[in-house]
């Protein structure tokens, strides 16, 4: 343990790249050693076996060459045997059969039929060429060399060579050495079989060398050996490999490989190759050095590769460590471990991870402590919220069972908390018709949560109160996932009041649309943002529509209304209709509400009423006197007519013969009754005029004059008279019976108008003056009519005095009565043909008040 710790301590200070090189070297050495161990042995083994193979191959090659060389020789011999010259040579020859035939020997003679055919094919010339007859008797011998002995062919060889089949090749080991003997049949030119041609060639160094042409003699030597005796019969290099020596003598210095000659096995001959040991060793050395070089290269590559890999890894580690330490420093605020160069990064990393793990553990503990605290706080807060919430808060689990229930929910749903827990929310709190919607809301919330959208879902439902009645609620669902279980918190807000308020607002909002009068709302710039149905005509007249603009002339009004915040009332005529517009600014919203009222009918009615009234007053003023007079006349006419009838009837009877006095008495009574009736009518009339209680009202004389002038305007126009008013600048206050004084003024003005009827049109003048003098209000009505005769002046104010054809003669009389009744005076000044002035004075109001006060006291 301590060893390990101390080792690690040392290792701490070895940087990774150094370690990498060290390890690489070590690995290289180990590899080297292992390869040396394994590969050296293997190489030796391979080399040995390979050497054998190589040698055998070499010797086989030698054998093949040798064999082929012999075959070449045989072929050449055959050419010779069938040569035309030989056939021609044989034509005249006749060999008689004879047992003892001595062959003719030609030494060093080149017969004509023997061309230099062997030279031409690069073959050594044969030592002997023999011609044999059909029985195998040798007839002619041609010896190449003088020194060469004549060869006695053994009968075995002779029979072997003279097979009737044709060419035969054999090797024979004669005493002088090894020979190659080749026999072939010969014929003369007529085709008669003459016998056999036999060629003998000694297999000596030259032959072997020729057969092994191209072979490096210093490296390898070839020899024919006797297998049984293991003796060299002929060698390619007789100087170094002496024929007649034993093979074993050579085996110390050479590697000997012998192979049997396949076609000549019966001769017990082998062709052997001799490879000197020195040559083999050289080759072996060469192979080993090659192998060593390869191995060294492999080890070097290995070291380099390994070091590079480790180095790269360590460099990467450095970077990772730098980053990690930076991260630790920045994100976690950990100073240690700080990365240093020149130490072992792996160990550093390990330490770092250990530290980091501890830190994380610590942090996690702190976090969890913090989280627990927070949870406790949240729980407390949640409980407080649940308790205090004005909304019903219900938590249900995935199956819809209530698991939390706040006091508001208790009172709203009429259910104690402990009763509610564990029960199905939908079944308890919702009417059956609303449950599917509730399920849909839940499903939507779940889906939204699963798709990562805001899972908060709202809906409006009806909920059941404790007493079974329903209430509209706004339901808000928040899904919560805890430990793979789904919960939902439901917030229910009783919106009964809101609904009512909404309905109220909606119904209020309908006011405008239902209004039969146009209601508009416009912006500061006169854009119409609302217009009810009734405003269509108005908008059309304005050449605008519900989305249009106010006419430009109204923009200033709208702007002004918004600036001073004052409601203003305007009138406008649009499309022959009169509208009263009430502009109400809503300054904070920048709108102006326009309430229009179609007052066409009102205005028309007013106008008509004014006209009508004027006419009515006019007519009534015109006819009042006539009416009274006519009524009075009719009333009086009745009793008077009756009296006349009674009286006439009575006088007729009195003229007749039969007089019934009773009847007459009765009629007299009737007459008296009717007279009584007439006087009653007159009395009633007087009572009507005289005994009315005075009515007094405050008025301005100027105003009365103007009013009366408006009554007679029509008449004045018809009479082509312009009434000139010269009224006091200040009001002339009087307290009078308005109707009576108007009647007086009307009479006087009308009289003046009548008086002007004979005056030329362009000279008609009617002037009315008023003034306040001392205690009196005075009014003068002046015309330039014909005037009043002085004789008439005295009777002017008497009843029934008139100068007109159609008059009653009551106007001035009544006027005088009325004026006198008001403690005023009326008189006339007239200069006939010039002017006539009627003066009316009435007490000014203040003077009159005093007099009344005096009377009272």
């Amino acid at each position, binding site marked *: 343990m301590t060893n390990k710790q101390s080792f690690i301590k040392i290792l701490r200070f070895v940087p990774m790249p150094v370690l990498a090189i060290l390890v690489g070297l070590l690995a290289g050495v180990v590899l080297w050693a292992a390869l040396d161990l394994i590969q050296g042995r293997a190489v030796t083994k391979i080399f040995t076996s390979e050497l054998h193979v190589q040698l055998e191959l070499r010797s086989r090659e030698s054998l093949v060459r040798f064999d082929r060389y012999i075959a070449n020789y045989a072929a050449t011999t055959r050419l010779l045997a069938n040569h035309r010259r030989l056939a021609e040579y044989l034509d005249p020859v006749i060999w008689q059969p004879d047992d003892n035939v001595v062959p003719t020997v030609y030494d060093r003679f080149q017969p004509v039929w023997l061309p230099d055919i062997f030279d031409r094919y690069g073959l050594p010339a044969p030592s002997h060429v023999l011609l044999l007859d059909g029985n195998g008797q040798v007839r002619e011998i041609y010896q190449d060399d003088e020194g060469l002995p004549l060869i006695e062919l053994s009968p075995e060889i002779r029979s072997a060579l003279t097979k009737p089949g044709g060419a035969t090749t054999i090797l024979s080991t004669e005493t002088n050495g090894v020979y190659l003997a080749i026999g072939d049949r010969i014929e003369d030119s007529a085709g008669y079989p003459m016998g056999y041609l036999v060629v003998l060639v000694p297999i000596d160094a030259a032959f072997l060398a020729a057969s092994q042409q191209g072979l490096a003699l210093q490296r390898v030597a070839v020899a024919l050996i006797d297998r049984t005796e293991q003796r060299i019969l002929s060698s390619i290099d007789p100087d170094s490999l002496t024929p007649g020596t034993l093979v074993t003598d050579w085996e110390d210095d050479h590697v000997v490989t012998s192979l049997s000659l396949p076609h000549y096995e019966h001769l017990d001959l082998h062709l052997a190759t001799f490879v000197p040991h020195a040559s083999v060793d050289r080759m072996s050395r060469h192979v080993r050095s090659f192998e060593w070089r390869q191995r060294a290269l492999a080890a070097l590559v290995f070291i380099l590769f390994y070091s590079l890999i480790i180095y790269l890894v360590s460099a990467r580690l450095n970077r990772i460590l730098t980053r990690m330490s930076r991260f630790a420093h920045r994100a976690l605020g950990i100073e240690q471990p700080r990365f240093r160069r020149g130490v072992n990064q792996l160990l550093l990393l390990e330490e770092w991870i250990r530290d980091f793990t501890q830190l994380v553990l610590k942090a996690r503990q702190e976090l969890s402590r913090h989280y627990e605290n927070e949870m406790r706080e949240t729980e407390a807060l949640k409980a407080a919220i649940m308790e205090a919430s004005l909304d019903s808060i219900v938590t249900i689990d995935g199956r819809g069972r209530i698991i939390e229930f706040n006091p508001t929910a208790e009172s709203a749903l009429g259910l104690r908390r402990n009763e509610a827990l564990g029960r199905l929310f939908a079944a308890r709190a919702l009417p059956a018709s609303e449950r599917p919607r509730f399920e849909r809301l839940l499903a939507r919330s779940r889906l939204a949560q699963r798709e990562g959208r805001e899972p908060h879902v709202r809906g409006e439902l009806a909920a059941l109160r404790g007493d079974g009645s329903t209430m509209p609620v706004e339901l808000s669902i928040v899904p919560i996932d805890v430990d793979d279980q789904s919960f939902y918190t439901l917030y229910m807000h009783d919106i009964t009041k809101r609904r009512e308020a909404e309905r109220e607002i909606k119904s209020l909002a309908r006011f405008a649309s239902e209004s039969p009068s146009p209601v508009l709302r416009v912006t500061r710039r006169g854009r119409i943002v609302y217009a009810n149905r009734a405003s269509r005509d108005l908008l059309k007249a304005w050449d605008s529509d519900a989305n249009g603009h106010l006419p430009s002339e109204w923009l200033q009004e709208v702007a002004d209304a918004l600036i001073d915040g004052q409601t203003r009332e305007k009138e406008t005529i649009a499309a022959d209709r009169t509208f009263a517009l009430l502009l109400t600014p809503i300054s904070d919203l920048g709108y102006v509400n326009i309430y229009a009222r179609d007052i066409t009918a009102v205005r028309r009615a007013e106008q008509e009423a004014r006209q009508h009234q004027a006419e009515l007053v006019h007519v009534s003023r015109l006819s009042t006197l006539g009416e009274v007079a006519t009524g009075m006349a009719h009333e009086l*006419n009745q009793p008077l007519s009756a009296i*006349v009838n009674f009286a006439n009837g009575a006088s*007729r*009877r009195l003229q007749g013969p039969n007089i019934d006095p009773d009847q007459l008495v009765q009629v007299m009574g*009737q007459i008296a009754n*009717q007279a009584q009736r007439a006087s009653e009518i007159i009395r009633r009339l007087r009572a009507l005029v005289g005994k009315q209680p005075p009515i007094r009202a405050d008025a301005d004389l100027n105003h009365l004059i103007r009013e009366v002038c408006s009554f007679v305007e029509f008449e004045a126009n018809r009479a082509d008279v312009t009434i000139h008013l010269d009224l006091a600048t200040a009001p002339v206050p009087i307290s009078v019976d308005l109707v009576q004084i108007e009647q007086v003024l009307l009479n006087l003005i009308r009289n003046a108008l009548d008086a002007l009827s004979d005056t030329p049109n362009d000279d008609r003048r009617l002037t009315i003056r008023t003034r306040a003098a001392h205690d009196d209000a005075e009014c003068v009505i002046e015309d330039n009519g014909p005037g009043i005769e002085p004789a008439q002046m005295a009777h002017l104010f008497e009843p029934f005095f008139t100068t007109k054809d159609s008059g009653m003669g009551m106007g001035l009389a009544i006027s005088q009565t009325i004026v006198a009744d008001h403690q005023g005076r009326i008189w006339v000044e007239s200069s006939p043909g010039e002017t006539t002035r009627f003066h009316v004075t009435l007490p000014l109001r203040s003077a009159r008040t005093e007099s009344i006060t005096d009377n009272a006291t």
Partner: protein
Amino acid sequence: MTPQPTVFVVDDDEAMRSSLKWLIESVGLRVRTYDSARAFLASYVPEGGTGCLLLDVRMPGMSGLELQGYLARADITLPVIIITGHGDIAMAVRAMKAGALDFIEKPFNDEALINSIRRGLDYDATQRAQRLRRAEIATRLGQLTPREHEVMNLVTDGKSNKEIAATLGVSAKTVEAHRARVMDKMQARSLADLVRMALVVADATD
């Protein structure tokens, strides 16, 4: 047996009614008074109601003019005398245009009133006699055969018998016979008589 003609007085004023009755009775005429147009219509029977109607223009309810119009539409040919008060001239004119016989202003000149009434009564009597005669002739005409009717028309046109025979394609003798029967059935004493009858009928049908 002609019925006694009656002066019918319609006036809403009681004194007027009784004074008129008193005055008119003083010349021996029969008088019946009614306080309204409706009261008069309720009791009046056209057949026996000969005489004349004295009518006040101004009355509450149905006015004198309305009653006059009603009588005209009901084909009652009672002569109407209108009584008007002061200033009712326009109404009197309208009444005259509507066929009133006369109008009298209150208070009355008794002579004028009585004359007017007398004229009314005479007019009524003539009217009734004429109507009676026309009815009689119409009855006689109804007895003629179509052929006789044709002959009568041609005769009253002043055609001679020969002309009539040529027109109708019959002999003069036959015309003679038809003519005699027509004279007989029409109870005409002469040709002039027959022509008068034809004129009476023609007047009525005009």
